[in-house]
Structure formats: C-alpha cells, structure tokens
C-alpha cells in the first residue's frame, strides 16, 4: 500500500523543524526544533517498517534508538544551555556567536577550550 500521508506529515514536521533552527535565537527553542526533526525521522522509520515490513521490525527498533538518542541529546543540550546562561547571562545564540567567532585573541571564555600559545595570542606579533 502507499503511505503518502505519513510521509507528507513527516516532511511538514521536518520543514517546521528546519524553519525553527533557521529562525530561532533562543537555545531552548532551537533544541525543540531539533526534536521536531527527530520526530519526523521517527515517523518515517515507523511508516517504512509498517509498509515494507522487514522480518525483525527493524524500523520500529530504530525508532526506539532514535527516541533514546533524542533524550540523551536533549539532556546534554540543556546542560550546555544552562552553562551558556551562567557564562554569558543570556540564551540568545546570536550574542554568543559575536564574541566567540572572530577571536582577536581575547576570549572571555576561561574554560579549557582555549588556545594558550603565547606567541599567537599577542596581536602585535600576529600583524607581522
């Protein structure tokens, strides 16, 4: 049988998710949009399993995988969002971007993800 409606619904969900990623500036809403994409993937997996049914219900097993992975990803994502809020005072990704991107050598992030090469962090030398 043809399963058009579930695929179209999945496409709608996916597009909404992509739209959300493109337009949302709040980290938490961004993560919600990612969830929508994962939901779309889950829907496709289950539909494909029902329509083309493999013997071991592999589609549904993969859907379970996706759900677990989504849960893990949300956990870590929210932890990062909390950390972001504590360091920058806002969860607006555009504000974080401006500080971290074109680094002139003086990052405010004091974490281990820092380049401690003394020669490169001195702007006067780099200009040579």
């Amino acid at each position, binding site marked *: 049988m043809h399963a058009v409606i579930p*695929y*179209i619904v999945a*496409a*709608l969900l*996916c*597009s*909404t998710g992509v*739209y959300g990623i*493109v*337009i949302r500036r709040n980290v938490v809403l961004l993560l919600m949009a990612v969830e929508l994409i994962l939901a779309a993937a889950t829907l496709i997996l289950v539909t494909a399993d029902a329509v083309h049914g493999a013997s071991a219900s592999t589609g549904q097993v993969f859907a379970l995988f996706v759900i677990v992975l989504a849960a893990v990803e949300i956990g870590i994502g929210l932890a990062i969002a909390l950390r972001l809020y504590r360091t920058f005072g806002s969860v607006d990704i555009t504000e974080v971007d401006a500080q971290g991107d074109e680094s002139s050598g003086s990052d405010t992030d004091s974490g281990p993800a820092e380049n401690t090469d003394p020669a490169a962090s001195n702007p006067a030398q780099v200009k040579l």
Partner: protein
Amino acid sequence: MIGKLCAALLPGLPLLAGGVGLLLPRSSKRAAIWLAVSSTGLVALLALWCAADALGSFGVIGVKFTPIDLSFTLGSFGELDVTAVLRLDGLSALVASLVALVALAVQVYSIAHLARDERYVPYAAQLTLFTGAMLLVVSSADLITLLIGWELMGLCSYLLIGHDRTNPAAPAAARKAFVVTRVGDIGFLLGVVLLGAGAGSFNFDQLGSASAATQTAAGFGLLAGVLGKSAQFPLHTWLPDAMAGPTPVSALIHSATMVAAGVYVIARLDAIVLSSDAVRLTLATVAGVSILLGACAAATNDDLKRVLAWSTVSQLGYMLAGFTVSSPIAPPLFHMFTHAAFKALLFLGAGAVIVAVGSSSMARMGGLRRSMPITAVCAAAGLGALAGVPPLSGFWSKGSLLALADAAATSDGGASGLAGAIVLGCGTLAVPITAFYCLRIWLLVFGGSYRGPAAPRDSGWLTLGPLIALTIPTVLLGAVPLYGQLGNWWAAAGANYGAGALLPGEALTPLLDGSLVVLGAALAWSLWHRNQRDPARVFGRAQPILADGCYGDAMQRALVVTPVLAAARMARAVNEHGVDGAVRGVGLAVRSAGGVVSRGHSPLARYVSFAATGAVGVALLMLLIAGITA
C-alpha cells in the same frame, strides 16, 4: 662484473660522497676536504681507466673493450616498465673523464679559494653531488635516469649559485637560474613523456620505434630543455647573473659541465632530436643568434666574469650549431672538450685575479702581468684558444665546425643547406668579435699599468696548480687529430660516430678564419695601445644595450614574468572572492533567509508556507529518486 661495478661506481661514488658530505657538521672542514677531493680523485682515476680501455679498443693499448650496460628496474606502471640503464662506452667514458678531471681541478682550487668561508662543508658536498649528477647524465642510457641526473644538476647549480649569503645578488640569481632552466625543462619533461608513451619504453635503443610525428614533437621538447640548460637564446638570461656564485662553481658548472650537458644529450639522441628539419632549422637559428648575441655582449661588458659568461653562451652556440650542419657528432664534441679546458682555465684564472685585486671590474685591473706572471701566461693560452689562434686547441675545433658548415651550405640542399648557411654566416661573423674581446680581456687585465687600489700578488700553488694543469690540454688538445697513434684513434673514433672531415679540410676556411682573428685582434690593439682606454668604446652608444644582452631581461620580464604574476593575482582574487564568496554566500543566504521569512505576515502563515514548501520539495525529491531507480 668489474665493468658493471665501474659503471655503477662512476655516478654512484660521488653521489654517495655528496650525500654523506651533506650530513657532516659545519666544523669538520678537514673531513669534508678529504671526502670531496678523494672521491672526485677516485672517480677521475676510474673514468681515465675506462677511457683508456676505450682507447684500447682502437688499438693503442692492447686491451679489448666492450660497452658495459648496467640496468635495474625501478618499477612498472601497468605495461610500461621503468628501467634505469647505465651505459659505459667510448663516448661516455671520454666525457666522464673530462667531467671528473675538471671537477678535480675545481675541488683543489676551491680549498684555497674558500679557505675563509665558514660554509665550505656544504659547498664541497654540493659540488661532489653535482659531479655525481653530471656523471649520471653522461652514463645514462635511458630517459628517466637522464632526467634524474639532469634535474639534480639543476638543483645543485641552484644551491651553489646561492652559496654566498652575504652577496645580495646571489639568492635572486640562483632563483632566476632555476626558474629559467625549469621553463626549458617543461619541454624536456614533455619530450620524455612523449617518447616514453610513443615508444613504449624509455631506453635509448628503443626510442626509434616512436612515430615520426612523436619524434618531431619530442625533439622540440628536448630542444627546449637543452636551450635552457645550455643558456641559448631565448633562455640565456640566467647565465650572466649566475656569476654571482663562487668562481670555482662558475668554472665547473657554468662553463665545462652543466651547460655542456645539453650538448651531450643532443649528441646521444641526435637521431631522435634532429630527425626533423624543423627542429634542425630552429636549432640553427637559435644557436646562430646566441653566437652573435654572446659575442657582442662579451665585447662590451666590464665585469670580468660576465664577459666570460657571455662568451660561454656564444661558444655553446657554436657547439649546438655544429650538430645541425651534418650528422657526424665528433666535431661539436671536440669543441666541447676544448671549450671545457680553456673556459675552466679562464674562469679559475679570473677567480685568482678577482681575489688578488678585490674586484671583478676590469676597469680596476691592469698591469697584472708583472705581479701575476704565471696567471698571465695561462690566461693568454686560454684566451688564445678561445679566439682561435693556431696552433692552440680552439683553432682546430672551431675551424672544423666552420668547415663543416661551409660544406653543408655549399653542397647540401634544403634545410641542411639553409642551416649550414645560417651557421656559417653567424659563426664567421663572430670570429673577429671573439678575437676582439679576447685581446681586450688580456689587455685590460694584464696589460698596461695597474688602475686599482690594492696590491695584487700571484696566488698560491693550490690555485696555480689547477691553472697549469688545465693549460696543458688547452694548448695540446688540438694536436689530437694530427699525431700518430692518437690521430689514428681519433680518426677511428670519428669514423665510429660517422665523422667526415675532422680537420679543417679545405685551405680556404682556415685562412679566412685566421685573417678574421688577426683583424679582430688588430682592432682591439689599435683602440687600446695609445692611451689604454677600453676598446669597447668602438661600439659607441650601443655599448650598454649590447652589454645588457639587447634587452633580454626586460623582454623576459614583459613577456613571461609580468603576465604570470598578473594571472596569479587574478587567480587569487577569483579564488577568494569568487569561489569562496559563493560558499560564504550560502551561509549568509541561509541566515538572511531566516530574516526575510520572519518579516512575513502572521506567524501561522509563515509556518504554514515554509512547511508546505518543504513538504513539496521532499515529495518531488522522492518522485525523482523513485523515477531514477525504477
């Protein structure tokens, strides 16, 4: 077995010694001297022994000699096998002895010349490495080994020209030398590729099976490489600047060996390279232009080494032109031998003079015949040979070339006749100019009275020894065709390589040559002897133009360098703003798309429109895929 060992050791020993020498620390000067001189000496002995064996096959010494072939497979690309073949036959043994002997003389000379140089150790190693590379070229019998030695020589030349770091002109001169010869080597590489693809093998013996069109195209390619390495027009501009290197380097590389490698390659591959008339005519024209250009520039320059460099350009033109007028290869090779002897002699003498006087400008020299008598005598012999004064060696070698050109111009038809006419015309015209500048050099440097500040003295034995050693062949090599057993051997050798007239056959040509020599010398003397001013003033306002090589550098810059640099700038701009701009544009488009869409009407409408677009897109994609895979 011994033969194969010799064939392997001849290039292998100096290459190995050079490699080891490069690893020596800077402070071990003694070890470096020992390594360089002993390895070059051993190779010279080996080469002489092999040459003596070769002589033996012609009945002088009673030992039978057969050419030795040594080959090992480097790898096979599909059906194309790459085998390195070394061949030691009469020709390669003789040229190898020449190379090794000049190299030995230069190594010994360098000990004194670079006594106070702190970078002697890498210098000696590079010189040894160069000797190995040249010997590799000489003993190779397949195109890949030839190419390896060829390029390695170019690299050593680059390193050695740039040796003196305190000379601001040296790094630029080294770069120019390598780049200009590399431009010629574009053609050389293409020629090798064409021949390999066309003949199915790189072995010299099998190259003849390539089609005629392939041979012609490859001939042009190989010719380009030869023109570059042998500093002929239009790839000659690097040689005068290369004089920024140490003088022994100029003596070895830029007069006797590397620039002569092109001559040797044409000698070996003349059946392929000169198989077509187009190549023959091109070479004759180019060589003829170089003969005249070099002679005029040598007559007008003030820097002693530059004069000798331009003179080398001119003499190499003679050699290369000689190949176009007939198929025997003995006469140009004979000129290569004599030229190696007297030019190396002249460069080493120039080095001694420059060190003694402290400058290389001839305006600051003069009267050195009193303070440096031995050098003056040796230089006189060398200059006489260069000018073609009988009975010195240069007279015989140049004379036989002109005689052959005369014969070709008068008796052969078609391309060979035309080539002969060009060669005869340019060559004869250059004879008085050559005599002019030879006498000019001797008069300005050794004649008259001293014009400079320092107090010159004659050099030590480490310097004079090689000079005297080189004077002997300069004077006596001309005798080779004439006397007794050696003459028989030379005639037989010439017969093996198809030589016709080796001696100046008809009486007209040597008489004409001799009178032209006297004419040129007389002109120089008459302009000089009254008040000892530079005879070059006879060229008047053309003097600086001729000295500069008739705008050679400027033309090269305008025709090649500037366009390539402009192309480079354009490529960088296109790359960074065009191609990368497109990539960055995608990212910007995605971001601004969000902005554009969010400025729409109600939120619900925005959601719906975006989602619907996405759904339609996915549906189309699915249909497409289904259609393709159906």
